[in-house]
């Protein structure tokens, strides 16, 4: 398994995505992104469930609360509009919990939901206080499609360069060797990587802020 981890030189911000009681890796002690609000869209239903009680964190560690909206693979909703109020509630709640000044929306919208997704991001931005920054994750293939990201009403877009579906090999190649073929928002700024699908170090080094996913929930590095 590749075990490359972000360097500890703090030349750029490296932030771990954490679930539940995952330990905080050393490189991420300045800030962590905690996925603790879950919404599940199944057909017409908007399902919620309480998240896990958060672990005690070092006071110096800033938290970016993440709202994860899952779209059921078998029975996706025809529209994201019905879920709008619930997602807005969750984002507002996340905003109240943030100690970093940031909140993040993690929603892997389908092609047919693009307009709804962009409206939702706009509405979230409008409902959050201006001083709170909105980060959104993005599927890697959105980086090859201007209509997804042009003018998206978010303060940060985090393309996720891992588990990229059937085009994984081709997209990895583009990310590694042809970054100019990516949407400008995906070339610098922020990006998400997986510890299990590491790129050469110079790829992550292009970004001011990187987010890190670990299939093993960081349990083997403490």
């Amino acid at each position, binding site marked *: 398994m590749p075990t490359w981890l972000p360097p500890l030189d703090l030349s750029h911000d490296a932030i771990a995505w954490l679930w539940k009681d995952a330990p905080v890796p050393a490189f991420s002690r300045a800030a962590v992104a905690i996925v603790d609000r879950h919404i599940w869209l199944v057909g017409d239903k908007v399902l919620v469930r309480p998240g896990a009680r958060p672990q005690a964190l070092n006071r110096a560690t800033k938290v970016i609360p993440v709202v994860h909206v899952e779209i059921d693979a078998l029975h996706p909703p025809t529209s994201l509009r019905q879920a709008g109020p619930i997602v807005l509630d969750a984002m507002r709640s996340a905003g109240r919990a943030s100690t970093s000044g940031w909140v993040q929306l993690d929603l892997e919208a389908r092609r047919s939901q693009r307009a709804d997704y962009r409206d939702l991001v706009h509405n979230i931005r409008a409902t959050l206080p201006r001083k709170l920054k909105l980060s959104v994750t993005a*599927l890697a293939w959105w980086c090859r499609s201007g209509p997804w990201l042009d003018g998206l009403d978010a303060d940060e877009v985090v393309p996720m360069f891992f588990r*990229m579906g059937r085009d994984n090999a*081709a997209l990895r190649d583009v990310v590694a060797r042809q970054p100019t073929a990516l949407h400008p928002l995906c070339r610098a700024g922020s990006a998400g990587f997986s510890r299990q699908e590491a790129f050469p170090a110079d790829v992550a080094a292009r970004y001011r802020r990187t987010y890190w996913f670990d299939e093993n929930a960081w349990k083997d590095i403490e």
Partner: protein
Amino acid sequence: MKRTLAGALALTLLAGIATEVGASGDYGPSYTMFRAWTAPDIPLDRFQAGDLGVIQPGMRRVYLYAAWRAISLGPRVTSAPGMQGGLARADGSVFGYGWSQAADADQALTAHLARALHVPADDPKLRTITACPPAATQYAATVFHVASGRSDATPARLDAWVLNQQKVGEACQIADDWRYRYGTEKPVLVGPAPLPATEPLYWRQLNEYQRAAWAFQTGHYTDSTPLFERIGAAPNHPMHDLGAYLALRSEVRRVLAPGIKGVDLIRREQLARALEERGGAILADASLAPMHEPTRALLRSMSVGLTPETRLDELNRVLDNPGTDPFALDRLGDWSVLMDAVKAQDIQGLRSAHEFVDWIETIRGCTGLTSNPACEPAGAHALARWRQTRSRPWLVAALMLPQSAVPELMQAGLALPPSDPAYVTVRYHLARLNRLDGKPLEARAITDNVLQRQLSPGTRNLLRQERFAVATSVSEAARYLLRTNVDYAKSMSSIKEPDEAVRDTPREIMLDDDGLAWLNLGLAVTDLVELARQPELPPVLRARIAGAAWIRAALLDKLDEGRQAGALLAQLAPTTTAAVAHYGHTASSVERRHIVLVESVRVGLAAQLTMYAQPVAPVEAGDATASAWCSFKTGDAASEPGVYHEFKAPAFAWRLPPPPDTGHADQRREELGQLGSLKSATGVTGDDVLAWAASHPGDPDLPWLLHVVVVSTRGGCLDPDATTLSRTAWSMLHKRYAGSEWAARTPYFYSNK
């Protein structure tokens, strides 16, 4: 992020069926897509009664316990399955795994609140009225409607109730925020004020309940408990029936709120006894019968939270006896929750003390996607335990874990009667071990026999994998080639009216890695043609196979096979009839290849199969690309970026068996050697189109073909000269066909430096 919400959720299953190429998901067939890896795909009532299929080491402990119990009891488990619906309670599925539908706001209540707050109807503040759990929100709406219908419901009284209810909702919202707080201090909140004594009793009672609920939600349990007690003690109170139960709940929360760390067990047991006494009073009151079951559940939950070590010890002792009903009193569900919290270093002690824990942990220790060094010692332990005990559970474990057959085990496995709950699991592993031992005849006989039974999709897939691996001919392998997507099949069984997308998914229509490796790397063109003729395969797949054979034949300049493949393709996909006819009448091999390459672009044919065959149909001209293959390279070259990965024989018990060695092996190797030297489809097609443009400048398709070449170089599998190709095709398009539609639709060429 690509994290599963729960193990049971299928998040990667669209990889093959999604129409959104490039959508997220694990790449390639999912490890668990074709097997019931974490949970059975057999109805849970049947599973707990001994219909186990092939049990998997990735299954949650609740399922492995149910399997251990059934295997221990043997055939008599069918008459002693335990409480009906017990396993569905234990695994949480009956409760939707904790998911609930967010409550809709009651429109009349929300409208009243908007008026009382003097805010517009879409003000976010109004959402607080739904911030409490859905049941509480619905209850509040019911109370509102009942109260509104009373003759003494003045606007002022209703306003007061609605505003107080909003405070309760706000308390729920704040309580929810507190769950996720990171170092922030609790805000100061002001709760509902009591109504003056001059108000009618009914309205004061509603107010009392709101104050109790507010105190409970904000964690002021010393206030909420006595308020709920008073409600329970007042026979004429509208919420009388709930009072005692909610007071108990408030006390449980109060006791658990500080956490149990540092509180010694004796003290905690004292607290638990006091709460049990309080609960006992409710259970002794026949007038509170509707609250008896919630009370029992609350007490069990309290016991898990307050004295987990005592409760786990008690449950381990009960569950050690397979004759006891593990589902009664939520024993198995509680045990599962408690076991999840046991630290790894403490598991060993439990394994030594309890046989069933040892069995479950032995099996669970041997999981993973790749070779797991833990499997060998786990297998040795299982074998040693079987030799000591000669018990059926250890026989199953000892057969599951190793990679080679042990004669005495094989013999014991063969002796198991078909009525035994372990029968299918054991037979599957007997087939697997016979295959690994180089005994395909025995493996075939075993799988053929078990496949006669009524099996779940996941179980059937596993046996078909084994049967496929020992097939001796193309036609025989074809009968076991296809698999069912287990997640789709489970979903189908859970919905009454399947939608169009999943209607035919319970059928065996998909290809797993073994089938893909066989189709793409394991067959010569002539074998592909034979396979495309097999009537038991779906026509859509046969057309795709014929198309792959046709492209390969053209690339290899094999006219006879090309004509046969083309004829099949035209028959199965009539849209290709004209191109196939043209191909058949063309004498030049260069021209034939051009015809095939253009047709592959026009209707999206591919030289390599994917896990789900889509019908062959014309692609919208502007969306067409030259993507019929990526690379045919194998061996070391397969690790290059963008190269089709060579299928490697699995070295791990839970991975797929390798595909069968069938057909014309020498021919296949020779063909793959030639195909492996080719560029990608973009490169081959691009070179072909440029050459064609030189030799056939009047071809009316050329502007479109040049456009296709340019857009194909935008990404995907590309060759080192892709930039040159892109620029050359673009230049030709714009020089030669400057005014054409396709020149206008091709503003750029692509640089891939």
